[in-house]
């Protein structure tokens, strides 16, 4: 009994030591490989900066529009000035003809047209309803949004003034007129991203996606390279010491986990600080979310990596997934409008729940409890992919063992022949 116990402890010790060895070896592999270094360090360090600069203005301001002022009265000119005064719009041309405005639109001098009817001032004077037409460019969502926000705001404000003036003419006091015109005082509360800034909207998702994509890519590239360089084309190196599955998976995971933990400090801590993105989540909350996400991504990457026989394959097969994954996360098209098929596909990738959870925590201030759906899903993914990674690596390990014992009894000449044959494939 006692002997057995000693045996187990020494086995654990040995396993731990070889895990450490694999960990260090993975570090060596990463730091010696310029291509992988670019993906693991240059991309996570530079992309967030680049995107932050590109989206720095955050919102569309002063959208150039043309006003077709058919009324040409003091009321319509005031309306035009009010449009110009909104932060959203800038009236660059005020003409009397729609055709002229359309030419400007085609030449992309203006991005929208507002037409004030001929009867504008007469309608107001005679207490008739008047209709202002806004012609929007639907090619760009943000242009459309800016034109509608600006025009609706001015129309409502001007309309309200007219209404209050009319009511006061009917004998009401100013405050009575106000309440009659606006029985409900509406208060608009935009949560998470108050000003609707584009960087605040896109960058958090991009950060999480970059972590997963570069991780999976780097693991795939290194696996392909290992296969390519190995004389027998196996993923597991021929060591004198046996390479167990568990120590293999854990050793590699430890290497990536340490590097990406440090990168997270930069990407999720420093970048939001520098550019003023939302930072509602505290360190504990971020750790609760990022731990299962990083583990899940590493195990996911390890599982997939066994299919690559060449260095480039990972890049060829992974790169394009980045764009669909951004859409799958649910930040662009609302999840409530996803079909069941895509909702299921969404659950395959750790990035989907991590992006959603990160935005909830960091922008809306959700607690760990309120993010539990995402965190639990991420742990389930981490668990499932840990098992698949172990199965995939166990298969590789047995394969290598098998090959090793086969080669042991083979004469040197035959081995040389075999290496030559393998390389020709």
């Amino acid at each position, binding site marked *: 009994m006692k002997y057995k116990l000693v045996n187990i402890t020494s086995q654990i010790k040995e396993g731990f030591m070889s895990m450490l060895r694999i960990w260090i070896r993975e570090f060596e592999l990463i730091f010696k490989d310029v291509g992988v270094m670019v993906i693991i360090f240059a991309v996570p360090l530079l992309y967030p900066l680049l995107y932050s600069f590109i989206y720095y203005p955050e919102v569309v301001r002063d959208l150039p529009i043309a006003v077709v002022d058919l009324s040409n009265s003091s009321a319509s000119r005031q309306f035009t000035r009010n449009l110009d005064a909104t932060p959203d719009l800038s009236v660059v041309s005020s003409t009397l003809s729609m055709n002229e405005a359309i030419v400007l639109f085609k030449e992309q001098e203006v991005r929208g047209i507002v037409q004030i009817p001929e009867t504008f001032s007469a309608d107001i004077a005679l207490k008739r309803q008047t209709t202002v037409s806004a012609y929007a460019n*639907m090619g760009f969502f943000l242009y459309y949004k800016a034109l509608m926000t600006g025009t609706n705001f001015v129309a409502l404000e001007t309309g309200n003034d007219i209404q209050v003036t009319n009511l006061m003419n009917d004998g009401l006091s100013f405050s009575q007129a106000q309440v009659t015109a606006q*029985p409900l005082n509406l208060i608009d509360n935009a949560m998470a991203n108050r000003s609707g800034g584009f960087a605040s909207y896109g960058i958090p998702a991009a950060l999480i996606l970059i972590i997963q994509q570069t991780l999976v890519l780097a693991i795939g590239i290194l696996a392909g390279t290992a296969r390519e360089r190995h004389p027998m084309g196996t993923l597991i190196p021929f060591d004198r010491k046996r390479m167990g599955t568990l120590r293999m998976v854990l050793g590699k995971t430890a290497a990536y986990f340490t590097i990406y933990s440090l990168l997270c400090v930069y990407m999720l801590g420093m970048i939001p600080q520098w550019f003023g993105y939302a930072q509602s989540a505290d360190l504990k909350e971020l750790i609760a979310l990022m731990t299962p996400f990083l583990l899940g991504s590493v195990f996911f990457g390890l599982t997939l990596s066994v299919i690559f026989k060449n260095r480039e394959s990972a890049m060829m097969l992974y790169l394009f997934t980045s764009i669909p994954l951004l859409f799958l996360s649910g930040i662009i098209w*609302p999840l409530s409008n996803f079909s069941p098929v895509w909702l299921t596909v969404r659950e395959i990738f750790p990035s989907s729940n991590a992006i959603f959870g990160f935005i909830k925590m960091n922008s809306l201030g959700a607690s760990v409890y309120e993010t539990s759906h995402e965190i639990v899903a991420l742990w389930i993914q981490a668990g499932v992919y840990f098992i698949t990674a172990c199965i995939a690596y166990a298969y590789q390990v047995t394969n290598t063992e098998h090959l090793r014992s086969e080669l042991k009894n083979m004469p040197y000449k035959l081995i040389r022949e075999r290496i030559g044959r393998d390389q020709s494939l």
Partner: protein
Amino acid sequence: MNRIIISILEVAKREVLRMSSRWLYLLAVIIFPLLSILFFGSLFKEGVPAKMPIAIVDLDNTVTSRKIARNIDVTQLSMVSMTLQSESEAMSELRKGTIYGFVVLPKNLQSDILSSKQATVSYYYQNGFLIAGGLMQNDLTLILHTLSSGINIQKREALGQPEDLIMAQVQPIQVSTHQLFNPTASYPVYITTIILPIMLQLFILMMTVYSIGIEIKERTSREWLQLSNKSVVAALTGKLLPYTIIFMIMMMFQNFMLYKVMLIPMNTSLGWLTFSSFLFVIAYQAIGIFCIGLLPLMRHALNLAAFYGILALTLCGFSFPIEAMPPVFRYWASGFPVRHYMHIFQNQILAGFEIQYSILSYLYISFFLLLPLLVLNRLKSALIYQNFIEKPKH
């Protein structure tokens, strides 16, 4: 002349054989591009989001407040999925992501309305998601304004104002929205139409770099050049021809899905559509040649192509407009054929403007076809001397 054509065809034949030797070709040239069309074609199939879950916090609990809640429920965009008792409860649901927004109907709402006091109605929505946030804001603002006007109208009716005058009094200025040159205000029109070419350019770029780079890496480039009588132009033409044909078919299939299945308006002739699609494909093949010619070590060339290809999503300017970016990126954006292709789509295909408004975009795309000339000699020497093969370090 005939000899050149024969050697081009010989090279093309060799390439088709090479393509059938590895799974990767089948995946990256046919399966994944088709999956991407399927994904982006079906994701937004409803056109406009509908029935997004929201909550009502009814602190008043009277006939009036319940009537307002019902009115909010019947809008097309949102659906009241829960009625809650407190604002903090609703805020927690919003943080959990179960609802996209909520409206708080205050205590004494009914009595305030009856006694002509102004009641305050607050509404909250998740603005961390651009489309959902924008739509929620529009929808909630509109319905609450309408309800507010409804109360206004009832009051005026009670005061005995003539009915035909009331509407003009309540809303003196009405805004009618017209979508210029795109009557269907649906999202596929401006997401799918641009995303699909962006996806395809990734495949074209990566495949072009890969198919040339692999010859250098695996030292088969001399054999390849020999087949084309040492003409690098013939060698490249022959090699890329099968891809040009496949990606052109992919592009036309994509167009078929967009304009025939999803019924996005197409206001140009089939000839122009084919021509612009063809230019798009060969422009990206030219950029691929440029990448591998500039960096004949395949893994570096692939990294370069990947960096450039992914950036197209941002710098083609369909999500965040280029005009709103810092000026330096405006020049940078011209370096992406997909941006010019987007202009052609918006001006010529969708809006049906005269060709004069798109001619510049065609010229821009054509410029990219000259890029390979800059690296032809460098690429040829890399193919002959194979001096860009990584040596494994031991």
